[in-house]
């Protein structure tokens, strides 16, 4: 099992699409790719798009929380979209959905960020 990270810059927003399974083994890939894009890219905000994410455990929560803090320190916003039921339960259990706005799809997520910036 593996994980692919697809990055797209749209205006001042970095869209991160995760495909596959996010666990302890694959969390570092997400961490390094996002860290690099947040630090060296020109984007202010991040949309985490999870439509193609088939599995996630608490290692995923850790890496998402880490990037949220990193972005917040830079004054940026992070939102999540296309969250499946399993991932939603983890967000709920950890309280993460209280700090990360969840949107139905990428278009609505983008709209929400354009109001912010």
């Amino acid at each position, binding site marked *: *099992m593996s994980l692919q990270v697809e990055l797209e810059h749209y205006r001042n927003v970095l869209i991160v699409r995760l495909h596959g*399974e996010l*666990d*302890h*083994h694959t*969390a570092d890939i997400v*961490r390094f790719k996002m860290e690099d894009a947040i630090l060296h890219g020109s984007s202010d905000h991040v949309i985490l798009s999870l439509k193609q994410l088939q*599995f996630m*455990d*608490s*290692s995923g*929560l*850790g*890496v998402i*929380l*880490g990037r949220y803090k990193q972005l917040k320190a830079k004054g940026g916003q992070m939102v999540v979209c296309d969250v499946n*039921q*399993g991932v939603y339960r*983890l967000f709920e*259990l*950890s309280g993460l959905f209280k700090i990360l706005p969840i949107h139905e799809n990428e278009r609505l997520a983008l709209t929400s960020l354009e109001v912010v910036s």
Partner: protein
Amino acid sequence: MNEANEMTLTFSARSENEAFARIAVAAFVSQLDPTMEELNDLKTVISEAVTNAIIHGYDNDPDGKVTIEASIKGDVVKLLIKDNGNGIEDLDLARQPLYTSKPELERSGMGFTIMENFMDGFEVSSEPGTGTSIAMTKRIESKKALFN
């Protein structure tokens, strides 16, 4: 149907085996015809327990071995995940939501909380220097029951 159906799996404490472990257990349990949600719950708790064994039990030493014993009796799945690693000094502290002994590794501290919430039964026993074992049970509300 009263005799338990058992399966044992032992593998190296390597992170690439986390996916293998949860898929193997899911395949074993699939004979009960679980729902997607039940299957996802089981995969998640296996992932949590195996990840804990690798990171905390063995400090990522691939020479360590993780063992999973799974059994099915009636509609109940029993899972036992064991390591012979470091063990846990303070179990009450380790079970606190959001507590992690390794914040530098971006651990969320949600592993035990997830296991307790996703399963019907959850018990952890640990001896510092000897290892940790986690026993969990879940009743599978077989989809077949709907049609019988």
